């Protein structure tokens, strides 16, 4: 059963340089996501991935079309939707002067649920940072912490916007493991990325966006068969990332 249904979603922006004239950042996108699925929205910068996600999260108005999350209309019942989703944004800064533990409690209060910061931080492998402040975290830790914040309400759906952008390979792989682990408990996860490898490793299905339109959608394997059926010459070796990992190890560096 689909937990997310999106029909002909449109987001129109006015062109800043012209008084008349506008363009659709998201231009008639439709897809549905099954319960327990990891769905990846793939595309270059400016393809409309983040805007699509923001419309589902209630951050951006839906100019045309409709979106339903767990049977709730995002347009009509935004607050009910917000209660059942967890969101990690691209920019994840927090109030100064608060520790991770205090921030988790704050987010719990925003959802009016009781949370135990220790347990949640342990889930993202940050228990030792309970009394640290976000400013003291590394990039990977920061991403894991923002996922912890998104988990306070035990969401049915988790939205991750470019979760691994800017992370070193170790932190990236560590985050992939976290995503897979969360998904094992039947959590539906929607993520955007422009990392092909990430999409292939994590996602059950991928939607490829370009210029505001969804141009392809399928499982990674089917997409490869359909669009890149000619197998490339068997690689004689791994890529340079494998070299990097072989030399620097898989252990986390934070």
């Amino acid at each position: 059963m689909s937990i997310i249904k999106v029909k002909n979603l449109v987001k129109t922006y006015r062109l800043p340089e012209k008084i008349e004239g506008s363009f659709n950042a998201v231009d008639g996108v439709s897809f549905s996501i099954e319960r327990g699925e990891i769905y990846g929205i793939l595309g270059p910068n400016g393809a409309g991935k983040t805007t699509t996600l923001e419309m589902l999260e209630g951050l951006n108005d839906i100019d045309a079309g409709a979106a339903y999350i767990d049977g709730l209309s995002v347009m009509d019942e935004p607050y009910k939707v917000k209660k059942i989703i967890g969101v990690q944004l691209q920019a994840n800064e927090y109030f100064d002067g608060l520790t991770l533990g205090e921030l988790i409690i704050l987010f719990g209060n925003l959802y009016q649920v009781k949370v135990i910061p220790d347990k949640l931080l342990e889930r993202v492998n940050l228990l030792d940072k309970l009394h640290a402040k976000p400013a003291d975290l590394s990039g990977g830790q920061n991403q894991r912490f923002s996922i912890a914040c998104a988990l306070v309400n035990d969401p049915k759906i988790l939205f991750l916007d470019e979760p691994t952008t800017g992370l070193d390979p170790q932190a990236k792989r560590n985050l992939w493991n976290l995503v897979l682990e969360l998904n094992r408990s039947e959590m539906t996860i929607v993520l955007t990325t422009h990392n092909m490898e990430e999409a292939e490793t994590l996602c059950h299905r991928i939607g490829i966006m370009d210029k505001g339109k969804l141009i392809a959608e399928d499982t990674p394997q089917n997409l490869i068969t359909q669009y890149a059926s000619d197998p490339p010459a068997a690689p004689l070796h791994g890529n340079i990332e494998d070299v990097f990992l072989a030399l620097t190890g898989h252990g986390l560096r934070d």
Partner: protein
Amino acid sequence: MFSKIQFHLAKVFLKIFLRDRQSIIFSLFFPFVFMGAFSFTGGEVNPFNIGLVNNSTSIVAKNFSELISSDSLFNVTKGNEKDLRSGLINGEQSAVIIIPKDFQLNSISGDLRLLLDKSQIRQLRSIKESLGQSLLSIERELRGVEPMFVLQTEDVKARSLRYVDFLLPGILAFMIMNLSIAGSGYNIVEYRRRGILKRLFVTPIQPKDFIISIVLARLLIVIMQISVTLSFAIFFIDVKILGSFLSLYIMIILGSSIFLCLGFCLGSIAKTQESVRAVGGLVTFPQLFLSGVFFPISSMPEIIQPIIHILPLTVVVRGMRGIANDGLSFADMNIVLIGIVAWLVISFVLATKLFVWKKVAN
């Protein structure tokens, strides 16, 4: 009345503020320095140190000596001529008066001698004048003549108002404005820039919860800061608050509410930290000079006085001053009350119109 979430968020804002020691100190620095500096001026004139050598045993000499000693303008040291003369030379005394041995009324040889350090020109006149006055009253007394004119000074408000007493309510009002506008306006722009508002917006928190908690926290912060400043003024500078503290604090809360709402307006209009500071400065800076914080509004050019009177800070300053300096209650200040209510309504309506969650967060 307030929900749990509002209380919790207000507590968080308070905690954030209390952990930011630097801004606490900076926000107290200005009022403390100003009041401290002005507490030393505008009060009583320091008395002059005067030496008195009495070589006479006559009644007239005794009278004169007593009159001079009781004059608050002088701090009289009695002694012999030699010691006092050297005191005059090394600066301990401003002048030395010598009463000759044969000091008698109408006696030609009975001239008083005044030893002076002529470099102290500034004091010369007032010393001479005061001595002349003393001599005149002695003369009148001895001759049994009543003075023809008596000049009595009387303060219409029957209290002794030093400049620092006048200044304090103005400084407090200015603090209220700054702390409130910074608390809502500057903070909102900062939270938006860093994506914090956006992050809050994807949680089920309602905009009114966010606004109410900021207002609650800021009111407490303003009350704390004002109380520290007020205690300093009362206990160390001996400033007197004539009205009731309840009225004063109600005025503080009303004033803060106005400026918090105006801050929300600023924070909603201004998109960047630079622009909110520029616009904020445009709003606060002229009011600092125009709204009677430092000088009475009547000393401002008459052309702009009508405008000055409707500025929000003017209204708050007048209210604070009415309570602190004149001991008025709200019932005595109809015009101030009308101004406060008008500004509350205007700023609240504007703030709710301009602060749209989705627009402000994005």
